[in-house]
């Protein structure tokens, strides 16, 4: 009997990867190839008809990328996953399976600025309409549901302010309305928080951040929880209806509890095309092996820096859910007891000017537009990641003009604090 279940750190190292059957290579090889030979005509036809498991072309599957997919699926407790070229690509592919022109989806207002842009502007040209709701007010999600709503989208720990979303409460709204809940788990990673355990039906990530973890590769992934019944009321024809591009296969009927991941692969990635490079998959896989260790250090450092900042006379406010007394501290204790992540914001009494000065005076923190690197990072969201928003929307999304965002790395925390200290006093 296989009664023992492996722990998270074991899965982070092993899930999806086994020694190569022909060479014995222990580390997953980089299958840097566009295509794969068929055994014979019938094998080719079986693969194209989705009757057999196997590789055709790297835009659809790749053996290096497949290891990454299985590993993240295992870490999130999902049935299957699909890796794509970026976090943004993951969002497009997911919603393409769910929305037709004229449909709506509800999204939390506190999101990564790039996602707000994508939903507001790029998706408009597909006829997908975003309806914004307030993650701090569950009722606003309930009130936003209409007969055209097809999905709800939230971030578990929201960029930029590191606020925590009450996933279970929003999942209850989704369940009642018969909608799938999509959770962007980028800033938490499954080490800190597993959205599927709290009712998410689909999890997306920008692998670019903590999962890859080293600031060297873009990537995104979609995890299927295997929980949603796509065929219940004909609202999701990509999954429930015969697909003409596959001679009439019904995806959910054929693939059961990993149907959504397959739809994303064979209807989304295959036709839209944002495939991940196998080399990036390799780097991200290597990063994931140390995810638990890195996240512990990221969180320990972030808490120390946030505590130090909140006691500093030049600081007006620190927004970090890991701080006792923070507005989101109770939610952090419930959803992310191992740590509230390492991305947070603070504001300076000197306002916008002081923020700009701070950024230019820092010597260890890198001023750039990313989070979730081993290195500590700093940015002024209002003039960069969230610059397309008007002032009211900036404030609502947690990126007011006087706010500075930090992504705390895994350096020695004393050095990070010393760098902030010298920058605040110059």
């Amino acid at each position, binding site marked *: 009997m296989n*009664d023992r279940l492996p722990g998270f750190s074991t899965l982070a190292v092993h899930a999806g990867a086994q020694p190569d059957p022909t060479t014995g290579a222990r580390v997953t090889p980089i299958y840097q190839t566009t295509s794969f030979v068929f055994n014979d005509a019938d094998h080719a036809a079986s693969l194209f008809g989705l009757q057999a498991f196997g590789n055709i072309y790297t835009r659809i599957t790749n053996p290096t990328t497949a290891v990454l997919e299985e590993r993240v699926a295992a870490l999130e407790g999902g*049935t299957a996953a699909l890796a794509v070229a970026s976090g943004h690509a993951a969002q497009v592919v997911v919603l393409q399976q769910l929305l037709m022109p004229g449909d709506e989806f509800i999204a939390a207002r506190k999101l990564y600025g790039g996602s707000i842009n994508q939903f507001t502007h790029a998706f408009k040209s597909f006829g997908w309409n975003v309806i914004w709701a307030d993650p701090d007010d569950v009722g606003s999600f309930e009130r936003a549901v209409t007969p055209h709503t097809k999905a709800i989208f939230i971030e578990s720990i929201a960029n930029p302010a590191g606020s925590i979303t009450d996933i279970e409460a929003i999942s209850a709204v989704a369940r009642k309305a018969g909608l799938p809940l999509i959770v962007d788990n980028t800033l938490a990673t499954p080490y800190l928080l597993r959205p599927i355990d709290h009712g998410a039906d689909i999890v997306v990530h920008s692998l670019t951040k903590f999962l890859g973890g080293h600031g060297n590769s873009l990537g995104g992934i979609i995890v299927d929880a295997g929980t949603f019944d796509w065929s219940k009321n004909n609202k999701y024809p990509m999954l429930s209806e015969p697909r003409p591009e596959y001679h009439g296969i019904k995806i959910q009927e054929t693939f059961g509890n990993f149907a959504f991941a397959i739809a994303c692969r064979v209807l989304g990635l295959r036709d839209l095309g944002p495939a991940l490079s196998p080399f990036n998959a390799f780097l991200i896989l290597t990063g994931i092996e140390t995810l638990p260790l890195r996240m512990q250090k990221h969180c320990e450092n972030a808490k120390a820096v946030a505590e130090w900042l909140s006691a500093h006379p030049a600081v007006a406010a620190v927004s970090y859910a890991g701080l006792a007394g923070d507005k989101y501290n109770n939610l952090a204790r419930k959803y992310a007891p191992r740590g509230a992540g390492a991305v947070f914001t603070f504001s300076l009494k000197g306002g916008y000017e002081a923020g700009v000065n701070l950024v230019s005076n820092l010597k260890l923190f890198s001023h750039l537009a990313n989070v979730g690197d081993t290195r500590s990072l700093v940015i002024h969201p209002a003039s960069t990641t969230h610059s397309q928003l008007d002032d009211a929307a900036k404030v609502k999304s947690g990126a007011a003009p006087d706010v500075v965002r930090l992504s705390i790395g895994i350096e020695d925390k004393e050095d990070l604090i010393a760098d902030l200290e010298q920058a605040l006093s110059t």
Partner: protein
Amino acid sequence: MNHDSYSDDYIREILNGVKTIAMVGASPVNVRPSYFAFKYLAQRGYDMIPVNPGHVGKSLLGKPFVASLLEIGRPVDMIDIFRNSSNIMPALDEALKMTPLPKVIWMQLGARDDAAAAKAEAAGLKVVMNRCPKIEYGRLSSEISWMGVNSRTLSSKRAPIPTLGMRLSLNRMSVGGGETTASDRAAKNKSELT
């Protein structure tokens, strides 16, 4: 026996032990799930028999359809029932009239009938419910991992060299991997509703 979950060893032993499989409800339409599973299992060396009274006179991948289990005329190791939950019992009753008795009753993904399972077990048969043998074979051999599916197995051993091109072997040493409890729970809730 608890049918909410099965150990990998239980499923592996069944798939390794059976040689002849009769598929009740097999379809000759090449986009139906039963066709997919039939073809996949035939290619992995199982002696497959399609059972479907609506298609007698036709054949499926060279195997002639029979109208009922009682018309097979040779020993069958496993009955794979490709019918929904409400049609399991009649197929089981027919299986229990076979001589010799089959060793395994397998109910397809989505199908679960606890009364039928108890009856089969009382007659000494092994039972699997709400699983697909193709998916289970793919999972335990890790072939399904090529599609990014969570095989829920881990192994530090070199997998057996693929046979017949890209087919992986069931005889792979592995331990249990990550759970998919939310999905299992959703499936259980659904089967309790239907």
